[in-house]
């Protein structure tokens, strides 16, 4: 019982400590982004930041890092974002960010294309990537 309690606590601690950071390719000319810019990129209102065309990427839904990112940066839950994108899709004003299949794919894609903007848990950032925003 004690062990279960302990592992539950550990799980809770890891969810709370999800520490998402926004990344671009190490070759990108983008410098640090503001919270407003990150919001505008991920809700589709800005397709160009500091003269650079940007394409946001999403981690798979139901993941801790994705939940934490939207909660910390846009203040929205998964359902609230879904409702937001329903408004955009069915009025032809935009499509949600393309969803990658895994953290590994996120690292690979962002590292290989200067236009992609993604987010990851800080522990997964590789030398191919550059952190441009920390919540």
């Amino acid at each position, binding site marked *: 019982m004690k062990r279960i309690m302990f592992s539950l606590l550990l799980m809770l601690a890891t969810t709370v400590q999800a520490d998402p950071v926004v990344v671009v390719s190490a070759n990108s000319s983008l410098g640090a982004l503001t919270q407003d810019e990150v919001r505008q990129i991920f809700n589709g209102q800005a397709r160009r930041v500091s003269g650079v065309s940007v394409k946001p990427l999403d981690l798979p839904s139901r993941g801790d890092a994705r939940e934490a990112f939207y909660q910390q940066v846009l203040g929205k839950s998964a359902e609230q974002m879904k409702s937001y994108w329903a408004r955009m899709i069915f009025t*032809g004003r935009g499509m949600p960010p393309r969803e990658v299949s895994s953290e590994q794919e996120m690292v690979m894609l962002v590292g290989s294309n200067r236009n992609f903007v993604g987010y990851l848990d800080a522990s997964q950032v590789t030398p191919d990537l550059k952190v441009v925003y920390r919540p």
Partner: protein
Amino acid sequence: MLGATLSASPLWAQTPESDLQQRLLDYEQRLEQLEKQQFDKTLDDAADRIRINGFLSAGVSRAELETTSGSASYIDGADDTWSHDSLTRAGVQFNARLSDRAEAVVQLFASGADEFNAELQWAYLDYQFSDAVSVKAGRIVAPFYMHSQYIDVGYAYPWASLPAEVYQLAPVKTMEAVEASWRFTTGPVSHRLSGFWGSSTVDGGDRVANAQFQADDLSGLNFTSYWRNWTLRAAYSAADVSVSQDDLAAAGVPPILGLSFDEVYTYFAGLGLQYDDGSWFFSAEKARLDFGNWYPSSESGYVTVGKYLGKWMPMVTWAEVNPRDLDRSLPAALNNGLAEQQKSWTGGLRYSLSEAIALKGEVSYYYDFSDSEVSTSGFFVTEGAPLEDDHATVIRLSADLVF
């Protein structure tokens, strides 16, 4: 295993260890390259293919009202028995990418209110001139008020049904038009300015015996600004509206009065403010529908406040619509028949069943249809005697989803 294979090969066995490491590194790099190409390919495929999205709402509604004879129902179809049709509707949208810049979009829509006859609600070609400027041409839903363009997508908003005082005022939905929009940002604020020009034939609905309002030179501008959790929207649209003499007579305008409705300058103006920080929801709008002739104009508005509590969201809405610039030289009965007057309180509750399904319940109390100026039935359609009381209640339950 790998070691066994390597040592079994005489060629490998002779290779110095450093050379072997170099070869392994090369292979690893090639593998990574191939993986990358694979990812790029899947991504391109995803961008090329046709994307399909859909929405569905299933609902029931019922009105509590008193009439001495005949029947009555609310504008959205709610009457004194539980009915499934009025809130039930579904749509499927296909987005087909034609090139880097061009996209064709078709949305098929069917609703219980229209006996589930499928119609093309949206069908347009979208051309992206740049990251900031795009043009749509074809059949689009008129963007008169803040939520007009997704009024049928229940999942997109927290109400079970948008306040009729604003959203049923002008029953214009689709139009054939060209719309250009420009997106830009000023510091932390992003904006969208759009202008359209087209035409539409509008069915006035049951309350005016389905009179057809022909709107020509339907054009408008709307400007939306987003700053953090705030959205501010201003819109002005206008048209030259005509109604045939036969339809006017059917709508209750006696031919003997000699009134006509020919290319009348009509405008819709709206101002909306919304706040949503993921914890509180606030939305308020003011709208005006103004006919440049004897036909009664209206002014309306609503205020909604809601609170997100985990999966639950209780909310309350107050709304009203009042006639403006009534032509007093006309018979009172005519103004009473065409003018809009109503106030309402609505209490609602939304429950998030899963990430894509919402359940909603709503009770609306409608009142003040009549005063010393004008005597109406609000947004109720009566066949036979008018409503006995100056108030009525409507209950709505719905399940809204997107896929």
